[in-house]
């Protein structure tokens, strides 16, 4: 396969907030091509009438009762926070222009 995947690599890198060097991009493009080739091979299998698998374990969902338990202490919660202010995690502004394409999305 000699399809140029550099655009796809740029796109995925941007989604994943990865900064890649040109030589890394080249390696990734090659790997992406190999992965897609393998996927193409899998797609050749005839799956007519086969239910799509979303989970390999065939068990019923486990449900728990709606009861509250203990949470972590504040010091444990904030233990890994890169920056904190009072009892909050402190993060860079989310509306900065260079935040990339997914910036500013909210649930």
């Amino acid at each position, binding site marked *: 396969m000699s399809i140029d995947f550099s655009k796809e690599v740029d796109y995925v890198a941007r*989604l994943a*907030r990865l900064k890649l060097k040109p030589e890394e991009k080249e390696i990734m493009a090659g790997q992406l091509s190999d992965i897609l080739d393998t996927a193409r091979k899998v797609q050749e299998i005839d799956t007519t009438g086969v239910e799509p698998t*979303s*989970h390999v*374990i065939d*068990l*019923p*969902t*486990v*449900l*728990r*009762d*709606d*009861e*509250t*338990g*203990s*949470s*972590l202490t*504040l010091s444990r*919660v*904030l233990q890994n926070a890169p920056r904190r*202010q*009072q*009892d*909050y*995690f*402190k*993060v*860079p*502004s*989310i*509306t900065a222009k260079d935040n*990339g*394409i*997914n*910036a*500013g*999305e*909210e*649930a």
Partner: protein
Amino acid sequence: MNKYEVVIGLEIHLELKTRSKLFCSCSTTFGQEPNTNCCPVCLGLPGSLPVFNRRAIELAVTAALALNSKVQLRSRFDRKNYFYPDLPKAYQVSQYDQPLARGGFMEIESGESERIINLERVHLEEEAGKLVHAGNSIMGSAYSLVDYNRAGIPLLEIVTAPDIKSGQEARAFLEDLRSILLYSGASDCKMEEGSLRCDANISLRPQGSEKLGTKAEVKNMNSFRSVELALNYEAERQAEVLSAGGTITQETCHWDEEAKKTIPLRSKEGSSDYRYFPEPDLLPLVLEPAFIDNIYASLPELPAVRRKRLKEKYDLSAATAAQFTVNRALGDFFETAAQDYDRYNNLANWIQGDLQYQLRESGKEADDLDAKKLIELLELLDQGEINRPVAKELLTEMVNSGKSPKKLVKEKGLGRISGDEKLRPLVDQVISENPDAVENYLKGKDKALAFLVGKIMAMTKGRADPAELNKIIKERISNK
């Protein structure tokens, strides 16, 4: 504006009323100290695993059924991937192509007519954390602070079809939706605490056209009223752009409550690549038909049905039936009272008017009151034992002290003074003390008569009947 048809679809997010979060046992209580209701699961720490909260599933199914949505026996959870600091895992557990419930509809009253608003889907997901912005708004703050107490609270997403035609209709829909969700007990629907939130997609198309126009997404509408204002504003804005030959760019905007306008937040282009994939940490959600049937059987009477029943059974106006539906406690009080009193409209008027006013004044709830006492009061009034002003006074007393109106009448000597025998001496006294007023009345001034009536009402502390006094005063003056 009339050249265009407005097309609106709403996306409603609703926190379900559970004690613990969707996947862990951290408390969902609102207003706690920041970052104190957090654990490895809701913080997304490596190695932690989610376990479904049964109650969240029950409430989600309850809400879906109340909205006529078809609950799926099998649904699946997916990861919605995006980077945003309110999302500790950098993905949100949500549902994508196999939602909990599909379709559904709501009947709303829009102006004079009834309209059906269809739903696309109802699905369950996890709530994100809360960002506290430094400075006053999301725009232009240098950094943000994050509180993850909210992260992981069960969140229901309800998506409507693009069936809504105006800001007014969007508001009517939301008000009805809120009623239904409150009735079903799925959520407390407090917009001010963020447990109910609404985003809207709005576009315009030429009247009669089938093709949807380019849409804008409007966010940050913090009340039903701001939904109405924001959508009407955005519709006008788009109409102006289109009329001038311009085109609408697909974008997300924020409703600025102060400036009363929508402000573009960012370009929407390219932002929809959430790379959904099945959540490997959760098994597909499989519901037994009996589980769904049981919930369906235990649904309470829903607002639309109740509204209609109140209207028909008691011959109430549409507005009254609607009020007794929105204010469920007041409506329940009416129905209890109506078991012993069949002048329904009179009863409704007293409840909606004076009683509701007194409840507000005293800070009491309709549940605190004994319906029998109100009936006692209305019967005293109907039988002419007391007059209207006294009845109002007694109602105030009754609400505040909980005493029976009959007892109060006796205690305070508030029984009506009526009959020629009792009133004539009073009338004669007032006539002789106010010759000017009598003269004015004889000259044809009706105000003079009202003045005389007022004098006697004051003398009797409001216990006489003004109409009866009118009659007797006229008689006595013309007999002179």
